[in-house]
């Protein structure tokens, strides 16, 4: 990216960029190239989400603003932008405003390590998957801080539910990641994708292996991590109004909303990287490689996102004790057992990656 910028400035203005300036501006351009499309994708995903629910519930969904209601999300965004930001008098002002910004920031920062195609990644970290795990485990702070800073009982209840829920499901997500890491033999996301090439009978991706149950566990834990239905206990509108968001209005609310959807898309991307083979085509067949990798990748994200919407449209909300039981008594033993089985399998069949 930096080299390209130097060449561009050379060609356009006849100026040679200083190396440090080229590096920094290269990074900035890279960030913008990820964040700006991401924001549009987030806006459109809200629209898609609503259309999918509407379709499944025999309704029409948004169809007024723009052709087929395509501009609905932008209209909603504009509405929120023009509203007044209300800060409750007894709120802790700094933390109250910090919380939504943090949620939004963390949802964007995680995208730095996502590989969109061969070599198309902003930061190709050796510990990419740990970075993703770390960032997603920080997501709880935005919610817990907003709940506390709002100085409202509903918000506080939502924050407490959320922190317990997210910490519980992170445990099983961690074990699922370990099984994938053992099979792939790397913590680098690009290498994990490459390890999924032609795993079995020419099929790309770990979903075709005995890791399939882990994909299901990962997906359901991802639902809980992103507070999506059926696990949206932190904002359960029937019991605690809207939980941690109850005191927020205007752009502060919009940041929560955008952050939530950016996180959902991130989780979809993680599912497709870890189990569906990222930018590889579904089967290892030469003509399929003509289609660029990022199209496969977006297709897979789109598919996983559709399943997210599908679940929301069809499944009723869990009760809190059932949620905790599922996390600790079902997913934790299963994923722990699967770590041991995977290790045993790799050892006995001598398939441990070097």
């Amino acid at each position, binding site marked *: 990216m930096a080299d390209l910028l130097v060449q561009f400035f050379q060609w356009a203005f006849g100026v040679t960029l200083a190396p*440090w300036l080229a590096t920094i501006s290269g990074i900035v351009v890279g960030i913008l190239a990820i964040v700006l499309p991401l924001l549009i994708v987030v806006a459109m995903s809200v629209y898609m989400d609503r259309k999918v629910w509407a379709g499944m519930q025999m309704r029409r969904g948004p169809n007024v603003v723009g052709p087929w209601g395509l501009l609905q999300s932008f209209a909603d965004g504009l509405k929120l932008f023009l509203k007044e930001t209300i800060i409750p008098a007894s709120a*802790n002002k700094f*933390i109250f405003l910090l919380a939504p910004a943090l949620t939004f920031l963390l949802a964007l920062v995680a995208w730095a390590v996502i590989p969109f195609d061969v070599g198309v990644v902003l930061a190709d*970290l*050796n*510990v990419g998957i*740990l*970075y993703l*795990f*770390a960032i997603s*485990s*920080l997501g*709880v*702070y935005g919610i*817990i*801080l907003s709940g*506390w800073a709002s100085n409202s009982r509903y918000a*506080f209840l939502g*924050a*407490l539910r959320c*922190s*317990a829920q*997210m*910490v519980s499901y*992170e445990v099983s997500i*961690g074990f699922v990641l370990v099984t994938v890491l053992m099979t792939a033999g790397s*913590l680098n996301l690009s290498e994990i994708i490459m390890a999924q090439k032609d795993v079995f009978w020419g099929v790309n991706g770990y979903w075709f292996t005995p890791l399939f149950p882990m994909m299901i566990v990962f997906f359901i834990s991802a639902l809980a991590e992103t507070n999506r239905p059926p696990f949206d206990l932190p904002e359960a509108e029937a019991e605690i109004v809207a939980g941690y968001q109850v005191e927020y209005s205007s752009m502060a609310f919009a940041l929560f909303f955008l952050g939530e959807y950016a996180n959902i898309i991130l989780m979809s991307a993680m599912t497709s990287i870890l189990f569906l083979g990222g930018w590889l085509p579904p089967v290892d067949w030469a003509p399929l490689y003509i289609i660029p990798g990022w199209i496969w990748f977006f297709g897979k994200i789109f598919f996983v996102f559709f399943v997210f919407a599908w679940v929301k449209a069809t499944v009723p909300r869990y009760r809190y*004790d*059932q949620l905790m*039981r599922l996390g600790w008594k079902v997913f934790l033993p299963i994923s722990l057992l699967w770590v041991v089985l995977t290790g045993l399998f790799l050892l006995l069949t001598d398939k441990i990656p070097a």
Partner: protein
Amino acid sequence: MIYTLCFYLFAIVTVFSGIMVISSRNPVHSVLYLILAFFNSAGLFVLLGAEFVAMILVIVYVGAVAVLFMFVVMMLDIDYSEMRKGFQKYLPIGALIGLVLLAELVLVGMGWSLQGPVTTDPATAIPALDQMTNTEALGSLIYTKYIFLFQMAGLILLVAMIGAIVLTHRKRPGVKKQNINEQVMRRRGDAYDIVKVKPGQGLG
């Protein structure tokens, strides 16, 4: 240049937030400063080239331990002026303990001598970054040479965990609990009967 700048930035913020942890009036702010301190230490680890340790620090301490701290601190309902009352009274003994700890630290630091493979051949202890990622380097050391210590540490943690559960777990009589299995296995016939009621006769 950037390296040095980053080091001083992380170091200064770490020390500053460490001080703020103990001096800020609001305990939630203290926890937030603690998190900031963890973050900046993770930054320092990254500067050292120890990216694995940095990420684990963030995952374990910030992502789990500090969340539980926060959870507890938010739930507490303490009158802080009440708590600060004894400050003057306990200051001497607190200062004394602090002094003893400081003296111990200084003594340990002065008596520290590097021995073993670290001094003789640094290259064997820590492989170069281009040969081995530091996750592999750590794994190949922990799971071979230090496996006994590693397992012991794990066992100690397990004992602590079981101990905490045993100490706090008590059997309370008369608590109504749900048996999920029973609920799932329930069939239509267990819940109700279908009775054909003839007109004019009722159930009888």
